């Protein structure tokens, strides 16, 4: 391949895709008029381009529709996430408010307050312990990515 062909060869993709500047396009046009080798190369690229484009038409109809199911699942997953967020937020708010009212209340005797406080604390410790265990397992579990 001589120097002129090598230079034009690098521009053939841009020429085929109509992405060259007018100056470069004219340069390629001029070269192609007198170079059978580069013209054949351009035809080769064009033919490959058509064949890859044709794969789109060959796409399985089931695959064409599959993405829609995927999108619906993603929408559902996001909605589910929002639902959980609302639920957990509301429960924490109510529990917090109940605890606050309970502490300030003068009706219950002190030992009941201590007992209920201990129940709250116990639940919190259990929750933190489970979370810690899960976190540690997720880092070391070699089967975590295996789908059942």
């Amino acid at each position, binding site marked *: 391949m001589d120097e002129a062909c090598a230079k034009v060869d*690098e521009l053939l*993709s*841009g020429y085929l*895709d109509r992405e060259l500047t007018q100056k470069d396009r004219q340069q390629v046009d001029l070269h192609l008029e007198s170079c059978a080798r580069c013209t054949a190369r351009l035809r080769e*690229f064009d*033919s*490959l381009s058509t064949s*890859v*484009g044709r*794969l789109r038409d060959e796409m399985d109809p089931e695959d064409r529709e599959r993405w829609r199911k995927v999108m619906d699942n993603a929408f559902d997953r996001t909605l589910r996430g929002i639902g959980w967020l609302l639920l957990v937020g509301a429960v924490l708010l109510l529990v917090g408010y109940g605890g606050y009212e309970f502490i300030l209340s003068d009706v219950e005797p002190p030992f009941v307050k201590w007992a209920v406080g201990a129940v709250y604390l116990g639940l919190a410790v259990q929750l933190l312990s489970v979370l810690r265990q899960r976190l540690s397992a997720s880092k070391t579990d070699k089967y975590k990515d295996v789908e059942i």
Partner: protein
Amino acid sequence: MRRAQLMMQLEQVGPSGYALAVSLLGNTDDAADALQDAVATVLRVRSYDPAQGTFKAWFLAVVRNRCLDVLRQRKRRPQADMESAEIETEPSEGPEALATRDEMTAIVKRELAALRRPHREILILREFLELGYTEIAEVLGIPPGTVMSRLHRARSALADRVKSYG
């Protein structure tokens, strides 16, 4: 971007995202998972900025990043994924079957799947999804000037492989 508008845009670019994911991951199950993750991310984050380019290019970049994560995970656990890492190239398709179908298209399909990932993805973006060079640069995160040279190398690589069939 408002949610309804976002969902409408996703409806339009969804098939392109799926096609890109299939071509990068080589099988439809992993592609579906990657696309689902990408759509969930887009719905959650909504950080698209029109000043940075088209929505399609931005979404395809999100899908591509998710696919690259999956490919990295495969590298970390090669044994578990050996089967799924195989590119679906219709291995049962013998010479007779090739002859009955459009032979050239069948060969191109097989050789496209066997190309190196950077070459395969840029050809899919250009020929299959018909993106312009600016959009391809946005998806791949490379300078627009690099697109033409990479595309040229990809086409040359594919042409060399197809030529070997005689």
